[in-house]
């Protein structure tokens, strides 16, 4: 079974129709526009990209919150048509804003109970036992101190622990974590990332980790997928990508990320001009070409670059590597 991918996404599209006054068709916002990838059992993959590049839409489509416009998702070899309860119990979801992700009117017990009630999981005693189990797993101990609390009584880090607990309460095989630490304080971030890593390893979970912050990636995942304007432009193992970025966009992105260093104050950063294109009307050819300083006239602005593999296991959609 291990050789079969946990989740396999083929040519996935998610377009949103844009209408004027509710009925006149204006166009499609191509939030996800032809994305392919596989994630193995127990593998953590990071999707990195700027806001509006479609990474959250991708996460939601994988979760089944959106129906794909085109393309297929296979989960353990099974094609997902209508996403039933079974699939929902296989995928856990961790959101960005821990306070918003928890219903403010429910206490921790109720929050953790909900997924089990909805999925008719276990008996009353089993559910109670499971709640304690996951709370201990996310280190909200002693459990009795937390089980009756409402979200507003918890700190940001504790809230995010509850969110993580909820995401694993049904024993899923895949976790989708959409910017799980970006709203937390620096000192708590590491704690939560380490917790996520522990949980992932303990249950051999596949993880889709979505972030705009590359600096946290290396502490967590094995592969990075770089997303730009609704497409994946580069896929590579973490170390390889950081030390040998191939796509001009990836390079710019890495250059822009500061490490704490007093020297920074005396340097200007090279940043590609302009802003990411509108997904309503993306440029033809490579979507990065209007901002790319290495673009090949007549090719990059006409043809959509296919995926090349200049280095083994390192895929890049850029004509520079044909």
């Amino acid at each position, binding site marked *: 079974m291990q050789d079969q991918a946990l989740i396999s996404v083929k040519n996935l599209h998610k377009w949103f129709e844009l209408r004027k006054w509710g009925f006149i068709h204006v166009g499609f916002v191509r939030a996800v526009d032809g994305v392919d990838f596989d994630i193995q059992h127990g593998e953590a993959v990071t999707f990195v990209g*700027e*806001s509006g590049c479609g990474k959250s839409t991708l996460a939601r489509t994988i979760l089944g919150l959106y129906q794909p416009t085109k393309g297929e998702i296979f989960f353990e070899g099974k094609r997902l048509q209508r996403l039933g309860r079974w699939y929902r119990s296989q995928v856990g979801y961790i959101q960005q804003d821990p306070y918003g992700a928890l219903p403010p009117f429910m206490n921790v017990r109720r929050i953790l109970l909900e997924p089990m009630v909805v999925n008719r999981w276990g008996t009353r005693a089993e559910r109670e036992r499971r709640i304690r189990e996951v709370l201990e797993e996310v280190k909200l101990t002693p459990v009795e101190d937390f089980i009756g609390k409402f979200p507003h009584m918890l*700190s*940001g880090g504790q809230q995010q622990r509850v969110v993580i607990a909820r995401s694993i309460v049904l024993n899923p095989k895949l976790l989708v974590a959409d910017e799980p630490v970006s709203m937390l*304080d*620096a*000192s*708590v*971030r*590491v*704690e939560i*990332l*380490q917790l996520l890593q522990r949980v992932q390893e303990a249950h051999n979970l596949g993880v889709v980790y979505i972030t*705009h*912050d*590359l*600096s*946290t990636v*290396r*502490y967590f995942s094995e592969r990075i997928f770089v997303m730009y304007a609704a497409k994946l432009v580069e896929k590579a193992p973490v170390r390889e990508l*950081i030390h040998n970025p191939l796509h001009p966009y990836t390079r*710019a*992105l*890495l*250059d*822009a*990320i*500061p*490490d*704490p*260093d*007093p020297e*920074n*104050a005396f340097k*200007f*950063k090279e*940043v*590609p001009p302009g*802003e990411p294109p509108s997904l309503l009307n993306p440029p033809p050819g490579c979507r990065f070409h209007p901002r790319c300083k290495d673009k090949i006239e007549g090719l990059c602005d006409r043809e959509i670059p296919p995926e090349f593999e200049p280095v083994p296991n390192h895929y890049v959609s850029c004509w520079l590597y044909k």
Partner: protein
Amino acid sequence: MEALLKVEDLKLYFRTTKGVVQAVDGVSFELASHTAMVIVGESGCGKSSLAKAILRLLPRNTHTYTGKIYIDGIDAMSLSDEQFRRQIRWQKISYVAQAAMNALNPVIKVGSQVAEPLLIHRRMRKEEALRKVVETFQIVGVPTDFVDRYPFELSGGMRQRAVIAMALVTNPKLVILDEPTSALDVLTQANIMNALKRIKEEFELTYILITHDIATSSELAERAMVMYAGQIVELGNAGHFYLEPLHPYSQKLMASVPTLREDKELDFIPGQPPSLINPPAGCRFAPRCHKRFSACDREPPMVDYKDGRKIKCHLYA
């Protein structure tokens, strides 16, 4: 060099239903002209309150507001509210509030909003003010035709630049930036940092940058201040701070910053920052500190360390 901003024993307490919050508790520092200082700390450590205290933007539930503030030689605390508004705010110090880019009025054109300080503080005519806005837009890198656009027509980065333009438009000496890039993407963030650096050199500005993002803060910092539970725990040159933080809190904080290029074992600070209502006696960081010893039950002094660094810790006494 004469200090542009001098703060002595500044206190700002708030009254709440649960008790008095000591948001800023006895903060003293000096800031030389044409330097950039960053204030880092966890959320709720009082760094934004410090900015508001300097600008005298006090909420209704202010309990205590004492200390001395000298701005460009003016004793700001002796001014009346009206004098302060006329002489200091936007004349000497301007302010880019946290998430200000999302606070732009959606139904007023960006240009008119940016011109507002000129109309109020400089009593300029509208056309004159808009000319000045166009000038400032060029400086911060906003296309000049954006003057006639509405905020929702601008991207996040452009709105943030417009807000920075609003702070620069009256040519102040000191600009206080509260988390100016934290909601933005990395590339946009780098762009804005570039712009801020360039503007600082061009106009000999002084910055106070408030942020919880230590990596980004290093882009601008010449001086660094670390706040914990309403107090300064470390103050020094950025060069020293980023390479060799001294206070145990600064050390832990620095160890928790993920780095892209170098491999390092990440660390985190266990526990929670103390409540600012009834903070612990003695060193406020002691309950979470890995180097705690018996002396920590007493309030630590502000120690003058070598290279002009100041550390509030018994370890260096």
